[in-house]
């Protein structure tokens, strides 16, 4: 078993750091031998996504539990997804925290994953997470649907026809452009795309729009450049724009071919 403890310095007598994401060290402790590995936390500087960097460190070290003062909800989610037990509100020294955790762990009988209560808890957790994910989608989704209602009521088909002329190449280009600058959950792009079709916009434009929405991230480009490098992000996004247009045209032509075939 391995336990990761957020810590102010690099030994067992150090105080437990109160913020997991920006703690100076993560101390990995084997509670049987009390051997430690003190690792400087790459997120200690507190820059963007510091918490996620600490999470990645904990996951890569294959720890079973994280003990800390406070852990953000996002970090808890990622750690829990990887089967790591998160204990927050921990105070005192690293050694005391580990001893306390061992004491509590011994008090809880080991459970098998096949036991009904474990399966029930996992299902409940999945239901709660899915409920939260849907709840997170709903406000924007409802806003988009309400906006589409206004659009349907007040924007004429003639206006749309003046933008999307029916020319396969131009429609694909405009659809790609529109989808590239918009972002958000793909669910919204499908609803908008479906309504575009209803209003007479071509399948080329709609396909390019929903494909670009999810494959090209002009809004997220700065974050992608910061994380993965400018060269990589630019090459990937430029290639994605070209491929988005190719995918759209091929999809629509094949779809029409299938329709004719049938």
């Amino acid at each position, binding site marked *: 078993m391995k336990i990761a403890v957020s810590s102010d310095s690099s030994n067992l007598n150090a105080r437990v750091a109160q913020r997991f994401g920006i703690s100076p060290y993560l101390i990995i402790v084997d509670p049987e031998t009390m051997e430690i590995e003190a690792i400087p936390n790459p997120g200690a500087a507190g820059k963007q996504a510091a918490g996620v960097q600490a999470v*990645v460190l904990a996951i890569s070290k294959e720890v079973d539990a994280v003990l800390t003062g406070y852990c953000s909800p996002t970090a808890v989610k990622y750690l829990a997804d*990887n089967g790591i037990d998160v204990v927050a*509100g921990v105070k005192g020294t690293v050694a005391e925290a580990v001893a306390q*955790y061992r004491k509590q762990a011994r008090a809880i009988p080991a459970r098998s994953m096949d036991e009904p209560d474990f399966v029930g808890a996992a299902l409940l957790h999945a239901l709660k997470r*899915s409920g939260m994910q849907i709840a997170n989608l709903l406000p924007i989704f409802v806003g988009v*649907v309400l906006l589409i209602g206004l659009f349907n009521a007040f924007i004429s088909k003639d206006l749309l026809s003046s933008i999307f002329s029916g020319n396969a190449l131009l429609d694909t280009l405009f659809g790609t452009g529109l989808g590239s600058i918009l972002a958000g959950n793909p669910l919204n792009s499908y609803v908008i795309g479906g309504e575009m079709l209803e209003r007479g916009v071509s399948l080329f434009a709609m396909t390019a729009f929903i494909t670009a929405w999810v494959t090209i991230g002009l809004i997220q480009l700065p974050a*992608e450049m910061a994380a993965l490098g400018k060269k990589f992000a630019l090459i990937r996004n430029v290639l994605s724009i070209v491929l988005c247009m190719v995918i759209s045209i091929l999809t629509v032509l094949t779809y029409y071919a299938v329709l004719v075939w049938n």
Partner: protein
Amino acid sequence: MKTEGSGIFVDKRSDLKKLVFPGCVLMIYGIVFVINPAGAAMAFRSSTAILLNLMVPLGLVFTLMVFMNLFLKPTHIVRFLGKGFSSKGIILSAAAGIISMGPIYAWYPLLKEMRKKGATNSLIAVFLGNRAVKPFLLPIMISYFGWVYVALLTLFTISGSLAVGYLVNTLAKD
């Protein structure tokens, strides 16, 4: 000590931010209603019809989400991204991209770390490209566009992501 293992947290500030957009749309409705009540009513009826049509697909989306949350752990798969542009690495990267959920910016630090450990640019590009395929949203897509179209788009999207991965491998050497 307080265990937070699988606790559900609510960030009130981000919850409020999410309400800004629908709030603005409702304000527009209010203004339109004053100027043109019949138009506002028509717009509202149109929106209600869309919402009602999507109720069943949304129920299916929820069911698929539950199954994915129950059985799939994309962060585990991402850890196995290969060091070369091998078939195993491609399949794992594509699978991880397809089952990954949540905003992309949350994945960047993890991908950065995986690259430090040897995952190639091409496999990261494959992962990012395959995020376009959303299995849990298939019911909505099919309800709008039909299964033939959705199957073709999915097939071409996955193929396109592999092409991007290959080209990134050539143009942005690791």
